[in-house]
């Protein structure tokens, strides 16, 4: 398998995860730490539906997104009454519960052994076995997610979500049902996360609980912060940079026992420098409307 195509697939999946998290954490200002777990829900749902229920790939893939969205909706409805740090902690708790479920519901998930032998996606009689074909369909999904998220963020819906992020009390006083907007954002982002998790499962052809743990959560968050909260081009760039750095660091010849921790240490330092010198990320959140052309909504 070509190194470049593997890199490309990893970036595309990662960018899909980052785009979803950006809608919640960037435009919505909610630190949802269950995003990686939602990807896991999507992955297990889609893979199991194909392998155990013989669903057609596309239906299973979409069902993965849908169940992750529903899970997001439930998490949002339960935790969004909490504020700030408490919300983040509660969603982290949900992530831990999901992880425990993947690990311990052995009859369904095979626990830590994971599920090997996941079949390649097949669509309209075509089997998307090659990494190039996989990259192509994931790119289409990413493009749709990107356009959806950006249009939402620029719409009156996104304007209200930004306002709730700025000052929830003031938004309530203007009659905006804050909870509704926030739950909708988490649900939509959950759909993207579920699709990303499913895409990863069908790409690597193996899923296990570790893929969707805290490590992934932190990585997505770093990519979104890297690119810039609230900027959707930034999430693509952040994903590219993050995965790029990670790959680059694997070539610098660290001794084998230091590869993992060394990479993490170097990435942490880079992130720290970024937060100090560019706290809004590489690309800051764009204004809602550009004043130059009045009457035309950005």
């Amino acid at each position, binding site marked *: 398998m070509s190194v470049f195509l593997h890199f490309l697939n990893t970036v595309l999946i990662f960018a899909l995860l980052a785009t979803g998290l950006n809608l919640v954490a960037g435009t919505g200002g909610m630190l949802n730490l269950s995003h990686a777990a939602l990807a896991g829900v999507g992955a297990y749902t889609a893979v199991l539906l194909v392998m155990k229920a013989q669903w057609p790939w596309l239906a299973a893939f979409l069902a993965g997104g849908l169940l992750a969205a529903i899970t997001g909706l439930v998490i949002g409805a339960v935790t969004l009454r909490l504020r700030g740090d408490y919300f983040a902690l509660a969603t982290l708790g949900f992530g831990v519960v999901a992880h425990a479920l993947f690990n311990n519901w052995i009859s369904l998930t095979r626990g830590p052994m994971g599920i090997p032998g996941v079949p390649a996606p097949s669509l309209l009689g075509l089997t998307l076995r090659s990494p190039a074909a996989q990259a192509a369909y994931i790119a289409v999904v990413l493009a749709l997610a990107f356009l*959806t998220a950006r*249009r*939402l963020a620029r*719409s*009156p*819906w*996104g*304007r*209200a979500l*930004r*306002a709730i*992020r*700025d*000052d929830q*009390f*003031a*938004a*309530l*006083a*203007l*009659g*905006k*049902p*804050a909870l509704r907007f926030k739950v*909708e954002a988490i649900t*939509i982002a959950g759909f993207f996360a579920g699709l990303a998790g499913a895409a990863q499962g069908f790409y690597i052809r193996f899923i296990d609980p570790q893929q969707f743990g805290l490590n992934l959560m932190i990585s997505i968050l770093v990519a979104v912060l890297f690119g810039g909260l609230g900027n959707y081009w930034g999430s693509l760039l952040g994903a590219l940079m993050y995965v790029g750095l990670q790959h680059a660091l694997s070539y610098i010849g660290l001794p084998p026992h230091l590869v993992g921790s060394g990479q993490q240490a170097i990435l942490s330092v880079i992130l720290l420098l970024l937060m100090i010198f560019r706290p809004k990320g590489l690309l800051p*959140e764009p*204004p*809602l*409307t550009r*004043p130059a052309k*009045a009457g035309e*909504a950005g």
Partner: protein
Amino acid sequence: MTEGGRPLLEVDQVKKAFGGLQALQGVSFTVPRGAIFGLIGPNGSGKSTLFNIISGFYKADGGRVLLEGRPIHGLAPDVVARLGLVRTFQLARPMKSLTVYENLLLAARRQPGETPWGALFLPQSRWTPPAAAARAEELLALTGLDRVRHQSTAQLSFGQQKLLALAAAVMVEPVILLLDEPMAGVNPTLARRLRETILTLREQGLTFLIVEHDMEFIMGISDYICVLDHGVKIAEGTPVEVQQNQQVIDAYLGRAEIG
């Protein structure tokens, strides 16, 4: 409800305690439709608490609040606002990441683009009703904020932020506006503008309930005034009646006999 006889807002025996402190001990008053109603009292008299209860931000321990005859106590603040009772805050709270114009559009009701479905599948031209955009233009002109319409709210002066808060509240199409110290910290020029704006909006049919410390302003603009002290209503009437009330004078100037 019949429009003629029934008062627009009825506050009935509202009680609230914070721990051992009786912030409100059964306060009642009614605001007639079309009136400017002043709510005054020394610091700590319970005005802000009452504002927060009426607008749904606090739950009362007892009593009722009726808007056009309909009970609104216990409803969430956003529901109260959509029923037509909209408040501003003592420190204006404009949305920092939105421009002046976007702050106004944000506040408009019934925007098809405010659901994910509408945002994704309706053309941009149908995201916000034309009437809302037109009303925003009117309010920009009325408040004099049209010159700064595309500026971030962070660049506004304190007084401009208060004008914006008033205009945004009007965008919600309220039947009654609750203003929390609209004059505090506003320079004289903008204060005049604010006053004129309030009077114009009243002519357009709005009712006002205003908490204010600036006595000259509140006595000059109000039709009726209610005075609170230590969570109790101590006087109510026209500005002239209230100013001559001995209890009110005592409350403001201090009472030698009470420790």
